[in-house]
């Protein structure tokens, strides 16, 4: 049975439309006008216990809004959502006991209170029994190496130190579900690596279900077997991260370097490959050219065979798409050969 389940989950925000200036503000007072903004648009999501899911998408796609819907601090405009069988907004307090949350940009520690006191307060708030508290915090302190930070008030912590403490704080009551909203924002490479290690450890030890939003591909690649990508509030991809390169990795590039200047390479290439497959030709200068083609239609080998005799090829390089370039292109809607405009990409999802 899924631990997190959403069906047709939708959130519309009502935003006041205020014309600029004082006149506009007054007009808004007299006759307020609003526009609806659909931040989350009919999302279907089903996450099994112990899954680690990366929730990605461009800025403003609706990731944080989804997390807030799952925590019960926002009420959906439409659709259903259940976390461990509980409807979060209807039963916010019961839901709160099951979840841990980290918002990267906000701390849940108390600014002027030593970390140790903050942990103790959280233990009190969640009514964690004494021995469970000692065991859990002991483990968290050990794994995250927090011992030197315990007497320090939150305001004196660096961002990375704060993040480690925040992570511990979110797990003091041993929740089965953990939401992480951009937890690695602003962290250096070493702290990021440590964070990923920590999540893996906790996952292995406790079977934690993790939903993580991030703009860092490393987080996604190293932590999550499953990736859900949303754009403008809709899911555009839901599947294994590795599958992404296989499925969308058909866009290949072939870079050729000539032994002599060849200004009209494009014409020559078109003549040489004829109708074999559509290619996009970019010639940055007279001695080189880049061909972008659809790997499903033709192969680099076939193209090279056609071109090797027609062009003075001195050197060549074949470029495979990286996950990063694929994701960037999905975000930008610039995958070639797919006619990949936004409405089409709806059909791509599994």
């Amino acid at each position, binding site marked *: 049975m899924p631990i997190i389940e959403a069906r047709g989950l939708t959130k519309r925000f009502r935003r006041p439309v205020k014309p600029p200036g004082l006149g506009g503000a007054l007009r808004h007072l007299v006759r307020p006008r609003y526009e609806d903004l659909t931040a989350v648009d009919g999302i279907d999501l089903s996450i099994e216990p112990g899954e680690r899911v990366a929730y990605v998408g461009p800025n403003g796609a609706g990731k944080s809004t989804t997390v807030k819907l799952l925590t019960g601090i926002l009420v959906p405009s439409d659709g259903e959502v259940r976390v461990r069988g509980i409807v979060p907004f209807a039963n916010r307090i019961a839901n*709160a006991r099951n979840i841990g949350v980290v918002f990267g940009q906000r701390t849940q520690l108390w600014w002027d209170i030593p970390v140790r006191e903050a942990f103790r307060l959280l233990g009190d708030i969640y009514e964690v029994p004494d021995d469970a508290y000692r065991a859990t915090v002991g483990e968290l302190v050990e794994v995250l190496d927090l011992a030197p930070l315990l007497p320090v008030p939150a305001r004196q912590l660096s961002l990375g130190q704060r993040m480690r403490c925040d992570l511990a704080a979110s797990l003091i009551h041993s929740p089965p579900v953990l939401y992480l909203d951009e937890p690695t924002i602003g962290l250096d490479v070493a702290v990021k690596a440590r964070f990923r290690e920590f999540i893996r450890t906790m996952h292995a030890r406790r079977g934690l279900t993790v939903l993580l939003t991030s703009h860092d591909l490393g987080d996604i690649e190293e932590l999550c077997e499953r990736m859900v990508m949303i754009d403008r509030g809709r899911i555009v991809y839901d599947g294994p991260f590795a599958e992404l390169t296989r499925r969308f990795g058909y866009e290949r590039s072939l870079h050729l370097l000539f032994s002599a200047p060849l200004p009209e390479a494009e014409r020559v290439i078109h003549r040489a490959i004829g109708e074999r497959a559509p290619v996009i030709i970019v010639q940055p200068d007279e001695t080189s050219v880049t061909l972008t083609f659809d790997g499903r239609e033709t192969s680099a080998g076939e193209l090279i065979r056609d071109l090797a005799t027609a062009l003075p090829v001195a050197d060549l390089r074949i470029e495979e798409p990286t996950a990063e370039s694929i994701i960037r292109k999905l975000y930008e809607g610039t995958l070639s050969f797919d006619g990949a405009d936004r409405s089409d990409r709806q059909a791509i999802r599994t």
Partner: protein
Amino acid sequence: MSAATSTPVVTSPGRRPRYLAIAVTAAQQAVAYRINTVAGIIGNFFWIAILYYLWRAAFAETTRIGSFTWSEMRTYILLAFGLNALIGFPTASRMMYAIRTGDIVIDMVRPLNYLRTQLAQVAGAAVLEGVTSFTIILALGIGVVQILPPASPFAAVLFVISVAMGFVTKFLFVFLVALLCFWTINAVGLNWAQLAVVNVLSGTLVPIELLPGWLRPVAEWSPLRGIVATPVGVYLGQDTGWDLTLMLGLQASWLVLLWTAADRAWPRAFRAVEIQGG
């Protein structure tokens, strides 16, 4: 790893009741704001001095103004500012700020009732901020201004009860005003307005019976009189018998009403306008 096991870094001093723990933490936090507390005390001190000299001048001509003698008036001024300091300007600002910035999401993802959490925090802070300034003001009162003792031991007991009710009343009022922050950006303006209304209608600046005509009945029946006028009246023994019962009954009724209002208004305000910021 070895460090964690050889020296026990995690001690567990035992679980505390949740809202008590929140109050204690808020008090610890308030220690960090002691500059604010001191500034508040100095501000209050000036108000007390100004009113003290104004009223002393007024009493030079006469022995009674309204029902007040000079010694009663001195006592009134001092207690009024002491009580009003229990929930200070910074406390109200913090409540509004949390709503403005969306920091309340942190409180909202916890298994806590928001109204009670806020009350616990305010009470915790008040124990430190308020009680410090209240004590200083009281010391000042007994030493310099020479205030009157409570009218009777019975009045003293009722005073304490009335102060407690007044405290929660002020909290609820500030809380309800803070909810307006869901709709307006101008938290500072709202806070000043709140302060002015409380100062007048609670009887802090001028005893209610001396307020000008139209304002007087409003202040007489408003919930805000429970913050200052009612407890100080009890202290001075101004009302007895039926009047006293009426005053305390009014205070208690408003308290229940405001609590219910706050409890219901909160989720609505929260839902009507969404939390700010990613």
